[in-house]
């Protein structure tokens, strides 16, 4: 305050010659330099972070990207916001005179090591050797095998490690029509985008996130890394991005990120196997990112509430956007199929109740009935009494185990 030497000027890190100036506070500077160093050394996650910061200079990045969340704080005309990027959280503010200032980094410079320990999202190559699914170590650049028609699985979280995820995902994605089926998957293997986590994504238990998959902050890191992987694969033709269960949320976010960056993947395909988050949101994101859809966009089991919830809206949207391929006839066929699936769910409840010796007539409350059913079912019902489709819908893990034996 009393010294004659002026305070240290803030370093301008982007927008020096054109665009909006982006400056950085002296406290945050060393970490930024460290990140730049890592990015230059080829760490793909650091590259994403540095690029995102530099893109602030181009203007509107902070407004329409899902991984940026405006903070409630507004002081003196400046607007604070947080960017959630792989390996780091950046707090920045938009200045009055049209520029940005990076205030604070919460960076994890050992991010690469954490990926190696499966504690962060990563990309893995899965191949079947002598009847066993094997995965290699996490791919350094996060790039898929550059083979035409490559299948990439986006798995749900809640698996012990990438190997277990690959095992579960393999049987699920091979049920997707665009995967080429079990033989193709077994012969050529696939790439796996792995998201670590304690439990699955979406579903009824996480209803809020399930109906608004774009708002699930915990997945931003994973989605950004997936978006980078998808972007890097844009030169490869016919890549199939297939999500299973909660992987749909990660894929939805990644497609949205690409769409926001005006990136179009016209040569690629997308499919959701039993999504536990809104398929309609996913469809809209896929459409915006220019991805192609086969005759079907998702497959849904009858008990999967999330997958069935906005199917009708989804069919409506397909009619609107895919004028060439998706006829009214196909739409009505899909509507009928959807209704049948719902009917199946009703019949399923009936069967379960009958086998468990419960009465469906006027249960006190639906919730109490379901609890009783669950309790009775786990103890009393032999699985033999319930059909295969029912097991798949009701106990997917159990079904996959059985399926792998045949």
């Amino acid at each position, binding site marked *: 305050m009393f010294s004659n030497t002026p305070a240290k000027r803030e370093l301008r890190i982007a927008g020096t010659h054109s665009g909006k100036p982006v400056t950085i506070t002296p406290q945050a500077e060393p970490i930024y330099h460290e990140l730049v160093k890592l990015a230059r050394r*080829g760490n793909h996650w650091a590259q994403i972070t540095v690029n995102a910061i530099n893109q602030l200079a181009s203007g509107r990045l902070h407004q329409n990207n899902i991984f940026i969340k405006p903070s409630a704080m507004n002081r003196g005309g400046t607007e604070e916001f947080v960017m959630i990027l792989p390996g780091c959280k950046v707090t920045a503010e938009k200045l009055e005179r049209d520029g940005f200032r990076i205030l604070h980094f919460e960076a994890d410079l050992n991010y690469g090591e954490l990926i*190696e*320990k*499966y*504690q962060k999202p990563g990309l893995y190559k899965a191949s079947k*050797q*002598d*009847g*066993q699914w*094997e*995965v*290699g*170590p*996490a791919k*350094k*650049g996060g790039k898929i095998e550059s083979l035409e028609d490559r299948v990439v699985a986006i798995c749900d979280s809640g698996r*012990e*490690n*990438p*190997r*277990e995820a690959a095992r579960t995902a393999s049987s699920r994605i091979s049920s997707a029509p665009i995967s080429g089926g079990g033989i193709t998957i077994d012969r050529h293997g696939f790439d796996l985008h792995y998201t*670590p986590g304690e439990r699955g994504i979406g579903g009824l238990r996480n209803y809020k996130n399930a109906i608004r998959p774009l708002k699930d902050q915990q997945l931003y890191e994973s989605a950004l890394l997936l978006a980078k992987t998808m972007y890097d694969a844009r030169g490869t033709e016919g890549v199939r991005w297939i999500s299973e269960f909660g992987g749909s949320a990660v894929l939805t976010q990644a497609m949205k990120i690409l769409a926001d960056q005006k990136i179009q993947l016209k040569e690629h395909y997308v499919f959701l196997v039993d999504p536990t988050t809104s398929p309609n949101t996913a469809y809209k994101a896929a459409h915006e990112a220019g991805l192609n859809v086969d005759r079907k966009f998702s497959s849904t089991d009858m008990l999967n509430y999330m997958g069935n919830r906005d199917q009708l809206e989804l069919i409506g949207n397909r009619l609107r956007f895919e004028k060439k391929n998706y006829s009214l006839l196909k739409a009505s066929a899909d509507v009928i199929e959807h209704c049948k699936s719902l009917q199946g769910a009703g019949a399923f409840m009936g069967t379960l109740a009958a086998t468990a010796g419960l009465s469906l007539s006027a249960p006190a409350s639906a919730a109490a009935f379901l609890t009783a059913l669950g309790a009775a079912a786990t103890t009393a019902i032999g699985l033999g009494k319930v059909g295969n489709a029912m097991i798949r819908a009701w106990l997917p893990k159990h079904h996959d185990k059985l399926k792998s034996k045949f």
Partner: protein
Amino acid sequence: MPSKSWEHELIASRSWVFNGPWFTGYKGQVSFAMSGVNPGIQNPKLNFLHPKGFETGVLGFLTASWGYRVYDEEQEIPEYKAPLNWSPLTHLKIPAARFDMEVAAPVSRYRFVFFPVSRDRLIHIRFSYWQACAGSQQEQDQKIDPKPMQDLIDNIIRSIQLTPSPELEAELAEIKKSSPNLSVSPKCAPLKWPADVDKDGITILEYDKRRYATPGY
């Protein structure tokens, strides 16, 4: 295998799941696969029944199957490291060896057994085992003890018995005339990977990413 230099036929495979105490569930898995392998191109000079020929064959097969995989393209860090803890298997009466292989990241660990059954055929037994948890290998070992899995593998290896067919017996007797000692080297240092093999599956060459990726290279 990009060089397509070895042919292989799966004979048997199995896996064993390891569970913890009640309600702790799945902890790890051991998987086992046995296959017969032979080089695609016949080589009259090579005899796997001879210890030196056997070692050349094993190292060639390893390099052809795993040695070309690169974990870090820029720093040329190989994805696999082998052979580690090489030791001869003496109770089989023919050249035989067991050793380990490690992966650059803690995905799983491997233990191999190789022995020949004719001049140009090797039996390749591969165990892979892993724990169902995350973390570096050290952290994983702390969370879940790998010992029971390793013990199972070692027990199986110890229990291998070999009864040679009359033809094999005759050939072995023939070789014993010229070199009475059929034991393999007591030690073998890890190979310098990444590396490629030539079309014969035996000659180890310098690693070149384009060798089998570019047609007509």
